[in-house]
């Protein structure tokens, strides 16, 4: 700078009259030179910015926002369709009137509290009256007439055994299911018939998606009442009066969509006795369950036997029950997490533990006392989202022998079967159902047929709906956080993988929602799981987790030392040259004016 101010005498002596005019045209050589340096600089600036730009894969922020606005806080409820079929003449009431009657009853029963994954008020009712010689459909839908082929079955069907009726109805409905035009899921069907063989009402819920009501000649309002009851209690809420009220998942599903069911047999003191189990039997028995729950998660089953695993709560002897008693209040302290090495699996999946605890000789028999003072029949308990524990007292528990011979036994087969029943009940509880299917519901005299793989089809539907809903919420909140994060850090690198995963995740989430509204619940659960795991993958992508995004400070620190001084020189030079040129031109113009004048 000093050089410039020295070499450039800025204070041009304006008082010298001789230099106030010039006869020659001022030269533009230096001006052009300086400008030709300035212009490449200016032209190069976009290139520089472009080349130092950070790569950010374009994320579909708007579609994330619109989808999360739809899904959060409550996703739109899936559709539940009810199809009521009257296999007897309905005196003086049209199908349309029947639809209204049923809808009124259903509306009365639906609680306003809306829980995730329940259909809520998003249901559709259709009615077919098939009285043998005439056939009437509500709304005159073509699909309905195809779905229920009138005249194929009549009320004489119901004189048969329940299981046979169930299978026959399933066969008929399955045939009809193919021609559903809309491509939606199968509706829940309730068939009303009459039979001379039975007295009064006979209500059976099958293991598929249908139920049947056999009654003599009840009034239409009563029929509507019982249809609404069955529909709301079983098909919509999975056998409970209320919809599943718990929030979140019942069983933790891993990020990759798998669950490890880890069975552990805990021999509290192997010096007393060591029991083994023939786990192959349990494994085989669980195989159909694993298959049925496949849309929710891939379930892996593992087992191990642990030794020297004392419980951490204290039990006390009670004479009246002939065993060591511990109460509900001791349960939180029962699991001894410092001595029970349950998490020995290397898989990084969601994990549910199911434990069988064999007590020591001193504390045997160990009994669980319920709050009302009763001894628990199953002698087990569950902890939601964690797993279940069963206390199993060896058969020769009370026999007092002093031998030092180590006892090593395999659990007797009968005992194992009993234990398996409890395991299975706990599994149902963990998944959010009642521990066992009560064959007859006392309140409404409704008989329920148990499913082949432990779950009935309508129970699985409830589970699918719930999981789909939960997965969607979790997926959208993850994607929302990701988009917030990306938007708040403008200099964060977003690689293409993340963009792709977000895109696929959104597609899967949309698909899950469409399927849910169509009533295809298993597909909805499967694609929602996919959406969730893709969203998690995107969020936990290693490049997001690394903090090596280049900050603005770094950017300035690198480019400032060069560009600040250089551009200062350049701008000063340009300003001076322009000023100089204008002054000289003014002089020349003055000269021209004088000489012309």
């Amino acid at each position, binding site marked *: 700078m000093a*050089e*410039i101010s020295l*070499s450039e*005498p800025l204070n041009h002596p304006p008082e*010298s009259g001789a230099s106030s005019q010039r006869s020659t045209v001022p030269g533009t050589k*230096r001006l052009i*030179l*300086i400008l030709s*340096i300035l212009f490449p600089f200016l032209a190069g600036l976009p290139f520089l910015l472009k080349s130092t730009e950070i790569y950010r894969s374009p994320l579909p922020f708007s579609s994330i926002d619109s989808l999360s606005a739809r899904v959060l806080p409550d996703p739109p409820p899936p559709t539940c369709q009810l199809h009521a079929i009257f296999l007897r003449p309905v005196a003086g009431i049209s199908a349309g009137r029947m639809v209204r009657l049923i809808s009124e009853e259903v509306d009365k029963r639906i609680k306003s509290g809306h829980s995730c994954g329940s259909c809520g008020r998003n249901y559709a009712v259709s009615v077919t009256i098939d009285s043998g010689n005439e056939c009437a459909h509500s709304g005159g839908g073509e699909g309905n007439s195809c779905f229920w082929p009138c005249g194929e079955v009549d009320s004489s069907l119901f004189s048969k055994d329940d299981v046979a009726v169930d299978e026959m109805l399933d066969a008929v409905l399955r045939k009809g299911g193919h021609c559903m035009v809309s491509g939606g899921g199968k509706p829940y069907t309730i068939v009303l018939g009459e039979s001379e063989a039975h007295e009064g009402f006979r209500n059976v819920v099958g293991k598929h998606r249908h139920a049947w009501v056999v009654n003599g000649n009840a009034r239409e309002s009563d029929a509507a009442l019982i249809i609404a009851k069955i529909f709301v209690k079983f098909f919509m809420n999975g056998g409970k009066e209320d919809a599943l009220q718990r929030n979140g998942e019942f069983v933790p599903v891993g990020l990759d969509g798998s669950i490890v069911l880890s069975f552990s047999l805990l021999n509290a003191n*192997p*010096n007393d006795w*060591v*029991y*083994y*189990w*023939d*786990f*192959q039997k349990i*494994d085989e028995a669980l195989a159909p369950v694993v298959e049925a729950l496949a849309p929710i998660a891939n379930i*892996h*089953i*593992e*087992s*191990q*036997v642990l*030794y*020297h695993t004392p419980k951490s709560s204290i039990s006390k002897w009670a004479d009246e029950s002939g065993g060591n008693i511990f109460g509900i209040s001791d349960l939180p302290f029962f699991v001894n997490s410092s001595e029970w*090495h349950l998490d*020995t*699996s*290397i*898989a990084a999946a969601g994990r549910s533990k199911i434990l069988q605890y064999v007590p020591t000789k001193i504390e045997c028999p160990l009994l669980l006392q319920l709050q009302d003072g009763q001894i628990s029949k199953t002698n087990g308990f569950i902890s939601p989202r964690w797993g279940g524990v069963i206390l199993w007292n060896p058969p020769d528990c009370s026999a007092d022998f002093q*031998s*030092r*011979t*180590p006892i*090593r*036994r*395999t659990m007797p087969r009968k005992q194992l079967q009993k234990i398996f029943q409890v395991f299975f009940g706990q599994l149902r509880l963990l998944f959010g159902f009642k521990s066992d299917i009560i064959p007859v519901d006392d309140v409404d005299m409704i008989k329920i047929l148990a499913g082949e793989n432990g779950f009935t089809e309508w129970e699985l539907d409830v589970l699918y709906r719930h999981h789909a809903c939960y997965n969607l919420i979790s997926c959208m909140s993850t994607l929302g956080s990701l988009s917030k994060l990306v938007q708040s850090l403008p200099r964060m690198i977003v690689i293409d993988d993340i963009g792709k995963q977000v895109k696929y995740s959104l597609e899967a989430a949309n698909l899950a929602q469409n399927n849910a509204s169509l009533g295809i619940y298993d597909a909805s659960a499967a694609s929602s799981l996919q959406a969730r795991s893709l969203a998690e993958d995107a969020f936990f992508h290693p490049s997001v987790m690394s903090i090596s995004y280049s900050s603005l400070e770094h950017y300035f*620190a*690198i480019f400032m*030392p*060069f560009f*600040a*001084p*250089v551009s200062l*020189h*350049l701008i000063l*030079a340009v300003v*001076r*040259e322009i000023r100089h040129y204008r002054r000289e031109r003014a002089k020349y113009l003055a000269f021209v004016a004088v000489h012309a004048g």
Partner: protein
Amino acid sequence: MFVLQLFEENRWYNFDDNHIAPINEEEVKSAAAYVLFYRRDPKEKKSNLLKLNSEYNHLQRIRRVAAMATNRPRFPTAAFLLLLLLLYSKNALHPTLASIEEGEKREEFTEELLLKPLPDRKVLAHFHFQSSAPPSAANGRHHYIFPKAIAQLVRKFQISELELSFTQGRWNYERWGGFDPMSITNAKPTGVELWATFDVPLNEIDYTWKNLTHALSGLFCSSINFLESSAAYSTPSWGFHSNYSNLRYGALPREAVCTENLTPWLKLLPCRDKAGIASLLDRPSIYKSHYHSQRLKLISSKLVGIILEQTLSVVLQPSLRSNSPVSFNAGSLQPSWSVNSLFGKKVTGHCVLAKVSRIYFELEKNLASKVDELNPLNSWNNSVLELLEVPSREFRELDASSNQGSSLLYEFEVSFSNESTPLNIGIHWKLPLIWSCPHAPFRVSRYLMGSGNERGSIAISLQSTQLHEWFLTTSDGCAVHVVIFQVVPWYVKVYYHTMRIFIDGKAHIISDVVRKIQISPSEDKLSPGSMELMLRLPCNIHSATVIVDFDKGFLHIDEYPPDANQGFDIPSALVTFPDFYFSRRYQLDDSMQYKSTLLSKFQESNSAKRYTEVLLVPLTTPDFSMPYNVITFTCTVLALYFGSMLNVLRRRVGQEERLSKSKGTSIF
């Protein structure tokens, strides 16, 4: 062959395919019998149960033999006889064999401990646990005794062999033994050492190794995941183990070993440290020790299933308390000690899941021969020393070749002990004794030469111990082979062409001495350099030195560890002597079918090897603000240059001269 004990006679009968003959009880316990019929005596219920207990192991073995025998084609007479006997037994004999459990599924676990006084007043305790799982489809999913996590690891990564060791301290080859099973298989370099072979296609091995390091680092709470980068592990072809193409080897010399690593290791034992021999593992006494090495070895194959071997070797200094009356004159040389004084605990019973639960007490060959010289009546309680507990068995080493005496081994059965009668094995010295331990043919040391931050040399020096009988018996023309395996991180750039070999101080031509050499030079930031070298040295030399030069490389700014000024470690080199094989066999009672996994490990013939010290190479540590300084400095220079160029270009020299002239005229 069937063996039957007729209860009237209280004798055993042998039912062969050909004849029936009475035999004595010892013969019954031989391997040939595969069905034994017992009778339960209602009067002697208790004693019978005890008898069953003591013969439980034996029956286990018979069961296995029987399983094998059923596969063999048999003569019809045998089947007929079996049928007859079964019919007969229905009435008179109660086949108690049937009550032997199948639930165990043949997963086995053994626990053993070896105690050994060392010449420099220290004690070696070597814990050996072995779990095995037979080949099964359910491996990795359902287990009874075998740790599930390990089986899953084997299944997921298709491991065929793996060895992982955590070591603190350095094994003293001179004082603790350089040529015995302990030093050969259980002495490990400081820090973490991991090697594994996989049963996967060659192109997937690196990927599998990387995943394995992550799984192991999670399992053992350590930084094994640092071995993931390809610059951290190497692929030795013959220098480490003979001829493995799928072996990967990595070492972390600076890994600190502590309780966090021991606890997950103990979790793999079925009884953990709650019962049995492992209950001795008192953390403070282990981590106070001079040397401890915790090792895990896995062997898996389709035929034998998975075998998991866990060993822990500790060298402890017994406290020199002179509270026993005799120790005043004797204890000054060798301290008397017991398990209780070493670990602060006593053995109070075995782990009930262990098939074998024993403690061994070994007297080294040189020590045993000194004891023998005194011709004592009793080798374990004499004028020199006294064992605190009565051993249940005593074995002598089978060593026909040497006349220098043989090692002694005492066995203690842990299952006989309980809370009221704990086992407190120890030794009480009555006379001061000095003995030495067996030495390897060469003492090996490795050191750095040169100074400055640019270059240096690594020297591996071999000093002949001249003690080995092998040297004495052979003639002048003999030669001994030495294999050196050395891995060097990439930032130590070794120039292998500068290798020089000095024998007894004189330089030799490399091709005269080197028999075989394999070098994989390091690649910057990609792979470490490794050198496998087989030397052939004359027997009568005193010393040999191999020297290679290296340059120190530059690391990228974010490759420096937080404590860069401490220096960088070069992992231990492994020196193997393939001519010197060692195995230790004990005169086991063959008829007893004595089974011990520890002693069978001792019987395996291994060549002598030693690990060298870890080297510490200081590298120049940069000033971490340097990049910004450089940028600022360079840019300032550029800006100055640019500014002056710009000024030069737009200067109007003529006009300025005119101006100065006019100024000058106006002044004058």
